[in-house]
C-alpha cells in the first residue's frame, strides 16, 4: 500500500500523526477535566446565560444601558466602549505620532532632541504604569466647583473633561450623511479627473468639486430642512455639570495613555519611513522645480507610505488590544464587562470565548483594511 511512498513521506506522516495526536490528547484531557469540574460546580455550559438580566452597573457608556438589560446587551455596550476608545485613539495617535516623527527629523536641533526624549521616555515605561499615573493625575484635579477652564465652555475637573456639544438628532444625521455621500462622490469625480488628465495632460482643479459636494450640498440641505445647529454649553449646577459632552476621567485617562504611548512608536515608524526615501528623490523633485506641497504629496509621501503602512497596522492592533488595560482603572470595556460576567455567572469558558471572538474580529477587520490600503499604495511595477 505504501509502495510508492519514500522514506521521507513516511517520516512526515509519522511526525504529523504524533504531533496531532499529542495535541488532541492534551485538549481531550483538559476538556474532560473541565466537563467534570463544571458539572461538580453545577454550571451549565452554553450561551443561554446571555439572555439573563445582567444586573451590573455600567457607569460610562456610548449606548443606552440599564442594569436590568441582558448580559448580551451589556457585552454589546462593552464592545462599543472598546471601539470608542480604540477608534478615537488610533486617529489621535496617528496625528500626534506623525507630528513627532517629523519633528525628530527637523533641522531645528532643539525640536528634534525634544522629540527624541519624548519617544525614548514613553517607549521605555510600561503602558499600565503610565495609565495609572494619568489616572492619579485626573483624580488629583480640582473638584467640579473649582474646575479649570482653559477655554470658555471647556471644564477640566476630577469629573473629567467637559466640552460644549452639538446635539445630533435625525435631522442632523441626514445632513452629516449627505456630507459623507459627498465625500464618496468626490472620490469618484477625482478619479475621473485624473483619468482625463492622463489623456490630455491638462491639470484640472479638483477643489471646486470638493467644495460643492462636501460643503455646499449639505449646507443647502441643512438650510432647506431648517436643521437647528445649536451648541449646548455645559453649566455647573450643584456639584456637577449639566449639558455638554462629558469625557469621564477613566475614559480620558485611558485615551491619553494609549495615544501618547502609541504615538511614540508611530513617530519612529514615520521617521524611518521618511528616511527610507532616497535623497536622490528629493533632489530630483527639486531639480524639476516642483512646488513643495506637490513634491511632498506626489513624490515623497507615496514612497514613504510603503514603508510606513505595514508596521503601522501592528501598532493599530496593539492599541486596540492595549485598550483592555481599561480594566485596571475601571473603564468598562469589553474585557472588563466579560470579567464581571465571569465572576457573576461562573461562565468562564463562554466569557473568554466572547473576548477572543471580539478581539479576533477587530484584529482581522483592521488587518483586512490595512492590507487593502497597503495593496492600493504598493509599488505598481511596470
Amino acid at each position, binding site marked *: 500500500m505504501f509502495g510508492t511512498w519514500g522514506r521521507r513521506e513516511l517520516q512526515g506522516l509519522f511526525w*504529523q500523526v504524533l504531533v496531532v495526536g499529542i495535541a488532541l490528547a492534551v485538549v481531550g484531557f483538559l476538556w474532560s477535566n473541565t466537563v*467534570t*469540574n463544571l458539572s461538580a460546580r453545577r454550571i451549565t455550559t452554553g450561551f443561554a446565560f446571555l439572555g439573563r438580566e445582567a444586573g451590573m452597573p455600567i457607569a460610562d457608556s456610548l449606548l443606552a444601558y440599564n442594569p436590568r438589560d441582558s448580559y448580551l446587551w451589556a457585552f454589546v455596550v462593552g464592545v462599543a466602549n472598546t471601539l470608542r476608545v480604540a477608534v478615537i485613539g488610533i486617529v489621535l495617535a496617528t496625528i500626534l505620532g506623525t507630528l513627532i516623527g517629523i519633528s525628530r*527629523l527637523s533641522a*531645528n536641533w532643539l525640536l528634534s532632541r525634544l522629540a527624541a526624549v519624548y519617544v525614548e521616555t514613553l517607549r521605555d*515605561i510600561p503602558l499600565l504604569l503610565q495609565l495609572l499615573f494619568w489616572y492619579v493625575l485626573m483624580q488629583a484635579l480640582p473638584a467640579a466647583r473649582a474646575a479649570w477652564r482653559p477655554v470658555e465652555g471647556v471644564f477640566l475637573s476630577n469629573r473629567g473633561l467637559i466640552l460644549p456639544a452639538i446635539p445630533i438628532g435625525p435631522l442632523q444625521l441626514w445632513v452629516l450623511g449627505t456630507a459623507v455621500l459627498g465625500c464618496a462622490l468626490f472620490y469618484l469625480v477625482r478619479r475621473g479627473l485624473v483619468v482625463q488628465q492622463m489623456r490630455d495632460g491638462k491639470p484640472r482643479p479638483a477643489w471646486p468639486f470638493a467644495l460643492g459636494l462636501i460643503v455646499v450640498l449639505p449646507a443647502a440641505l441643512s438650510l432647506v430642512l431648517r436643521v437647528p445647529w445649536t451648541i449646548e454649553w455645559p453649566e455647573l449646577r450643584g456639584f456637577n455639570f449639566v449639558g455638554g459632552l462629558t469625557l469621564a476621567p477613566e475614559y480620558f485617562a485611558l485615551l491619553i495613555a494609549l495615544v501618547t504611548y502609541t504615538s511614540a512608536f508611530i513617530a519612529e515608524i514615520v521617521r524611518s519611513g521618511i528616511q527610507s526615501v532616497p535623497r536622490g528623490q528629493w533632489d530630483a523633485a527639486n531639480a524639476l522645480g516642483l512646488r513643495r506641497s506637490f513634491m*511632498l504629496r506626489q513624490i515623497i509621501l507615496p514612497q514613504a507610505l510603503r514603508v510606513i503602512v505595514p508596521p503601522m497596522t501592528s501598532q493599530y492592533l496593539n492599541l486596540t488590544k492595549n485598550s483592555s488595560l481599561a480594566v485596571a482603572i475601571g473603564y468598562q470595556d469589553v*474585557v472588563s464587562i466579560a470579567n464581571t460576567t465571569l465572576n457573576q455567572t461562573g461562565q468562564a469558558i463562554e466569557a473568554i470565548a466572547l473576548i477572543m471572538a471580539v478581539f479576533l474580529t477587530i484584529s482581522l477587520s483592521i488587518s483586512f483594511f490595512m492590507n487593502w490600503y497597503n495593496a492600493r499604495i504598493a509599488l505598481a511595477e511596470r
Partner: protein
Amino acid sequence: MTAITDIPDAPRAARRPQMGNPVSRWLRSNLFSSIPNGIVTVVLLALLAKGLFSFVQWGIANAVWLTPANDSSACRAVRGVGACWAIIPEKYRFILFGTYPFDEQWRPALSVLLFIALFYLSTRRALWRRELVFLWIGALALISVLMWGGVFGLSFVSQDRWGGLPVTLILATFGLAFGFPLGILVALGRRSKLPAIRSLSVLYVELIRGVPLVSLLFMASVMFPLFMPSGFNIDKLLRAQIAIILFAGAYLAEVIRGGLQAVPRGQYEAADALGLSYWRKHRLIVLPQAIRHVIPPLVNTFIAFFKDTSLVLIIGIFDLLTTAKTAIIDPAWQQFSVEVYIFVAAIYFVFCFAMSRYSRSLEATSAR
C-alpha cells in the same frame, strides 16, 4: 511643516557665509537657520523653561526628602506645591521586595544582581557560544535556590511571599528562557511542509497574537483550575508564568520566522546535499544564522515583555508595579502616589533604556 521642508538642508546651510566663532555658527545652523525655525526655537525654549521651572520648584525646591519613620505630616504640609520624596526611603523595601521576610531580603536583592549579571554576560559577543545555555540554566537554578531556600541553611520562603522587582525579573526572564525554545519549534512548524503541523502552528500563533495579554492572564487565573483534575492546584504565580511563556512563544516565533526567511536557500540546499537530517540541518546550519539575523528585534521583543509583565497587576500578582500600588494604600501616604510611580517608572526605564541602547548598538554593528 517647517520640519519636512528642512530635510534637504545641506544646500541651504551652505549658502550662508560661515562667519563668527563655532558656537554662534552652530546656533545659527541648528537653531536659527530660518525665520520660522527661529520662532520654533524661541517658543520651545520658553515652554521648556516654564516646564523645567515648575518641575524644579515642585520636585526639588519645595520637596520633602526625609521624614521621621511613619510620619507623613511634613509631606502633607507641602501637598500640591512640593514633592514628597520621603515616601521612597519609607517604602522602598516593600516596593522592591514586597512581603518577602524582612531579614531575608538580601536574598531577593542578590537575585536581582544575579539577573543583571546574567543579562550583562549575555550581551558579550565573546560569550555567544553553546556554553551560554549552561550559564543560563546555572544562574536560574541559583536564583531559584536563593528565592525559595529550604536548603543550605536558608529558610524556606513560599512564593506567595515573593514580590517586587525579583518577581518582575523572574516573570520576564523565565518567560524568555522557556518561550524561546517554544518559539523556535513553532517557527519551524510554521515553515514546515507538513500541513497538519503547519496549521497547528498557525492556529497557535494567530490565536495568541489576536487577543490581549490581559485576557490570557484572566484565562490563566480563572480557567486553569477548571482545566485541571480536581484536587490538583498550582500556584497563582506559576499560572501567570505559564500564560506569559505561551504569549512570549507566539511573539518570538514570528520574530524567529523572519530570521529563518532571511537565510538563503543555498544554505538549506547545501545542508541537504551533505545528507544532514532535518534536526541537524536546523541545529547546525540554519538556526545559528537565522537567530543572528534577528537579535535586534529579539531584544526589542524582550523589552516589550519586560514591560508587559506589569499586567499581572490585574490578576493580583505582586510584581514591581503591584507592590508600588499597594505601598500607597497606606492612608498616611495615600496622596503621594505620583512620587512612587515616578520612582518605579525610573526603575523600568533604566532596564528598558539599557536594553534598547544595546539593541541599537547591535543594529549599528550589523549594518557596518
